[in-house]
């Protein structure tokens, strides 16, 4: 009796494995096919990319597109802009978000609950609702076409997530640590900076990542707030390549792949942390 149960269980498990493997193989093909086609095109000459019938694997393997993107178009500059914008956004939103998170976690001030809800609600505001007036304010302050204007917007968009995330993290750090500091005569700010922050550093990884990726991938704000070539980010630069009258597909595919590289690497290395953070920020807060 017992062995027959085990036998059917084993058979069931083998069936499950077979179904799973076929599903995984199919979905891998689905996931990789478009990217493989990009990769293949990026190693072709322009003539071969437009030749008929199409070639699946480049007949003449060339790195021309990968060199042209830096010489024909200023992708070096676009990358630098993206790195500055995303890096500063990540740092600032994490710091300002952590301050707010600490305030929410440790102080029982009046209006605290409503303010928390307000932070959550601002996450629902869509970019197109606010970008017009924001654009006009930037123009009035002469911050139009500056990376600063872009960074301020990105930092703000990231703040609700950053504050909720860090509040959750601070909540998990015992309050007794703060109280010990108070007894020793430290000020609240000193406690925050010297005692709590060092412990909370691992908790900031997902916020840093979230903010960096948001800034790196955004198109809407960059499109509306940047109109000169020298200030374009990578995504904006790539988007403008599509708009050109004659699209150079090998260069466009090469630039797209190189432009995705930072996000590909960050996501794959840090996906677990990111998802945990997302679930945590969303569920518990």
């Amino acid at each position, binding site marked *: 009796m017992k062995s027959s149960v085990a036998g059917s269980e084993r058979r069931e498990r083998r069936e499950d494995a077979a*179904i*799973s*493997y076929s599903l*995984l193989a199919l*979905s*891998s093909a689905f*996931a990789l*096919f*478009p*990217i493989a*086609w990009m990769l293949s095109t990026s190693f072709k000459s322009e003539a071969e990319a437009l030749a*008929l019938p*199409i070639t699946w694997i480049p007949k003449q393997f060339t790195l021309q597109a990968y060199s042209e993107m830096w010489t024909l178009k200023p992708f070096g500059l676009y990358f630098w802009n993206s790195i500055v914008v995303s890096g500063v956004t990540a740092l600032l939103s994490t710091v*300002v*978000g952590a301050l707010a998170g*600490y*305030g*929410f976690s440790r*102080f029982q*001030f009046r209006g605290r609950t409503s303010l928390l809800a307000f932070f*959550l609600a*601002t996450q*629902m505001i*869509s*970019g*197109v*609702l*606010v970008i*017009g*007036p*924001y654009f006009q*304010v930037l123009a009035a302050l002469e911050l139009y076409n500056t990376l600063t204007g872009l960074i*301020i917007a990105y930092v*703000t968009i990231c703040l*609700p997530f950053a*504050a909720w995330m860090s509040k959750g993290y601070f909540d998990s750090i015992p309050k007794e640590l703060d*109280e010990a500091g108070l007894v020793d005569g430290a000020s*609240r700010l000193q406690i925050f900076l010297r005692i709590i922050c060092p412990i909370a550093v691992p908790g900031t990884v997902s916020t840093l990542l979230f903010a960096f990726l948001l800034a790196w*991938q955004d*198109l*809407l704000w960059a*499109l509306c707030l940047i109109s000169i070539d020298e200030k374009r980010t990578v*995504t904006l630069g790539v*988007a403008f390549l*599509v708009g050109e009258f004659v699209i150079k*597909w090998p260069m*466009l595919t090469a630039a797209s792949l190189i*432009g*995705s590289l930072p*996000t*590909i690497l*960050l*996501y*794959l290395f840090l996906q677990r942390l990111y*998802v945990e953070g997302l*679930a945590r920020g*969303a*569920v*518990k*807060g």
Partner: protein
Amino acid sequence: MRSGRTWHDRHLGYLFVLPATLMLVAVLVFPAFVTLKASLTPEGGGGWHLTLGHYQKTFHDPVLLQTFKNTFAFVAWSLVGHFVLGLSLALALNQALPGQTFFRLIALIPWTIPDVIAGIIFRWVLNPIHGALNPLIRMVVPSFPAEFQWLSSPTMAFPSVIFANVWRGYPLVMVMLLAGLMAIPRELYEAAAVDGAGKFRRFFHVTLPGLSTIILIALALDMVWEFRRFALVVTMTGGGPGTLTEVLSTLVYKTYFQFFNFEYASAMAIMMSAVLFILSLPYIILVGRER
């Protein structure tokens, strides 16, 4: 425990939350009110002479109506695609099979591509002459038209955009569901197996109830994101042919930044936000209750 709180301490909380609150007000809330006011201002008008004219116009605007329908269909089909693919892959990946990590990383790759670039990828894959999809289909179905125009076809353009968005977005739902699956205690399955529950009964009585919260959260978050999706449509079709693949984000953007019809664009943005708010109310209530 915290009886020794002083005046100082009670008000210090405000100082900590002040910078973030100020930024949110300055960059999001204040502009949102400016937009609200603009939506009530007659074209070219100023001051506090207000009108509901733009909103009246929205109800008779065939393009806006079409765009609302497009956006709903885009969100609904994207969610269905993300959920079906995400759940089946999460179930497949949760079995601790050899090679699981490898497949998991591959399944995640579309998620790592910025949506600007996902749009470009599919524009190139679906290119009628030089793209990869038509030759691929013709290998299986030789009678398929050689230069099928996916993105300028009135019937296929919109499904193509949704397809691309399913490709781009399923991994996030997948990882969230996978995290949920891993959190279901093994003992529950063992107990169900001892009780003689088969595969399907275990799925419906153990797996689905255990996942219900995370499913709700994943789909709610996904809905908010897909409702605002912008860059994928911009680089893939730009809203065309005609307005067949236009979504609300692209329409508001064009009306404001290309046609400079600020007041009308504002009214559309307000309507869009109101609809999104109503759609996400269940989620907001759910999160509020969890807290």
